[in-house]
């Protein structure tokens, strides 16, 4: 069973994640957008969206550090288990609370603002269900596991994180996950579910985060692209010569 849940399911989800993005990018560049709803409503979005996104950036950063950096590395540079724990919990709490509050505002806004609600697709709803579940479970793990220590202390850096790296290295070790507390197991499963639907939702916008803007010249010039005047390519055999 644990083989299925923590090896087969994650790999299937990872595959849809990767292949799904490639496919969507090829097939539907036009649909690849944030679908901003700011035009409809600004008062709530102005608070909710930055809260959620800045919180989310913290959460993503925290996950990258927590999951990808082995404990032995932080030990080697002299960061004690205790310090790491405090920093992680405080950082996690701050960004977690921002994310949760921000998300609550966004969902409330989606549901109650007429125009925003009518512009909400089925995929949006599914996405929010998974996103909310993953975030809530994650918060629960931080609060219940690390602060209140309900059900005993669990050092995820020796369990979940090691499993995740083994998973990425294609040598999955399902036992590590099977021995983790239920909260962590559920969080991981829901997160993989989210990854599986990711390419088919508006979340694709995350992969076009405009980092290039910082360095590119302000004004972009582009040639008319003589292989493609107008909005379509010339048919085969009609290519321009010379």
């Amino acid at each position: 069973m644990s083989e299925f849940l923590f090896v087969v399911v994650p790999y299937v989800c990872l595959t849809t994640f990767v292949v799904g993005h490639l496919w969507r990018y090829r097939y539907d560049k036009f649909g690849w957008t944030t679908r901003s709803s700011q035009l409809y409503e600004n008062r709530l979005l102005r608070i909710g969206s930055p809260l959620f996104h800045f919180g989310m950036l913290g959460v993503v950063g925290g996950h990258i550090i927590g999951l990808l950096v082995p404990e032995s590395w932080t030990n080697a540079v002299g960061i004690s288990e205790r310090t790491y724990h405090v920093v992680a919990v405080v950082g996690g709490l701050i960004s977690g609370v921002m994310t949760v509050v921000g998300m609550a505002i966004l969902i409330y806004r989606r549901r109650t603002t007429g125009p925003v609600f009518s512009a909400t697709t089925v995929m949006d709803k599914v996405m929010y269900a998974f996103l909310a579940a993953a975030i809530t479970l994650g918060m629960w793990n931080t609060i219940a596991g690390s602060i209140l220590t309900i059900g005993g202390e669990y050092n995820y850096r020796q369990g979940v994180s090691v499993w995740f790296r083994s998973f990425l290295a294609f040598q999955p070790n399902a036992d590590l996950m099977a021995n983790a507390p239920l909260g962590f197991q559920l969080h991981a499963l829901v997160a993989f579910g989210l990854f599986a639907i990711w390419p088919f939702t508006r979340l694709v916008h995350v992969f076009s985060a405009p980092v290039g803007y910082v360095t590119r010249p302000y004004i972009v010039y582009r040639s008319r692209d003589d292989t493609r005047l107008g909005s379509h390519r010339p048919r085969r055999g009609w290519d321009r010569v010379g």
Partner: protein
Amino acid sequence: MRVMAQMAMVMNLDKCIGCHTCSVTCKQAWTNRSGTEYIWFNNVETRPGLGYPRTYEDQEKWQGGWELNSRGRMKLKAGGRFKNLMTIFSNPKLPSINEYYEPWTYDYATLTDAPAQAHTPVARPKSLISGNNMKIEWSANWDDDLGGSTATAHRDPMLKKIADKVKFEFEQTFMFYLPRICEHCLNPSCAASCPSGAIYKREEDGIVLVDQDKCRGWRKCVSGCPYKKVYFNHRTGKAEKCTFCFPRIEVGLPTVCAETCVGRLRYIGLILYDADKVLEAASQEDEQGLYEAQRDVFLDPSDPEVIREAERAGIARDWVDAAQRSPIYALINTYKVALPLHPEYRTMPMVWYIPPLSPVVDVVAETGEDAEDTGNLFAAIDALRIPVEYLAELFTAGDVAPVDAVLKKLGAMRCYMRDINMGRDPDGAIPAAVGMTEEEMYDMYRLLAIAKYDERYVIPPAHAEQAHSLEELSTECSVSDYGGGQQDVFGEGSGTPTPIAVENFQMLQARQTSDSLTGPENKGRRVNLLNWDGKGSPPGVFPPKGPDS
């Protein structure tokens, strides 16, 4: 010198009757889809008035365009690159839909479906945003013809600048129309604000376009453009803007707004400019110097050195020829009667305007004096400070001297031509008073008043060897190339694009260049039943009968 070509437009405001034909035809051609209801690539504003979207010219509020930083360097008014990215999650300067207007339709079905009842059923307005019944309170030209302007006009940002002198009393009003499209700026701040680099300026003709496949809906261009000419399609989640009708321009046809303009007041042509000088000119410290600075960027297409450099830059010979015949160059640089709209935004706009003399003429005519007398007109131009200062706020960052000069030229043209039309001897002193020769004045009259089709539009087509793949000709397009239709799995309009051909090129050209209303005589086989009066057989349907019938 780095020569680049720019397709540009000039509008002669004296001739605009505010009929909105341009807006309507443009909308029919480009923005009649859902999600674009409120999008007017072309709109016509009554000035004084709030404009569309409301008070868009108040850059202290909307922070569009560029400004100079403390070191005199160009910087986006809304903030630098980092600030731009930090405010991406919620754009603090995005106008809400209420600043435009809530688009609506009417519940027409009740007119036919309603059960028998004592009162006539009414079609109620329904919001196209929320779907609910709504009260119509504003629209794209709500203050048309100064309608309701006693309540709103004091909010006109341009009027505010000269406000202490203006008492908005009805007897003192002046009014004119300002049709606006995207300026296709030389230094577009929309493009500079776009985080994904989806907005680009075409190297060949300077048209500024949004790549719909690269736009990610960050909606930063909307606030970045000081003219508010990028709009957000709230259905597709992508930015859309005026395309200068590039599929038509590519085959040598004028834009839809120009083609259908009732006043025939739009001019389209090429301008050659020195791309190396744009930034420096736009960074000119004195805002009132920006008009001259921009004029200096334009190159004289008859200068042999410019021609040589243009050739080196790969600009084809027929394009240089077109630039020499360009009405735009003539109006901006030879006659110097066209002025840029809001040069102080530092985007180097490329749709210029000939300011209207009519507010002045109207006043003179009302006093009973002769409105075609140079003395009277010149005196009125000097005396009527409010209209002139208002025009200066629009076109020269408040500097009245260039506006005065243009108005006097237009006034002089009126008076000079009247003598000719009345069969009197032309008075050479009139053109001389505004620094022109008689011949120049007559040429300017031809261009402005006679305004022949092929003098108004000098548009070199893209090259013949590419013609088969041009949008407008579409000789090779078959529906199957585009997936045979839309599959909107991910929401409105997702999937591969459909082509945007507008009208049949040959047919249009034949119609434009023929002298008759029906169609070219020599093209007997073209049938146009619209012009058939019902008597006899419609022309062209049957082969011509023998001479005896």
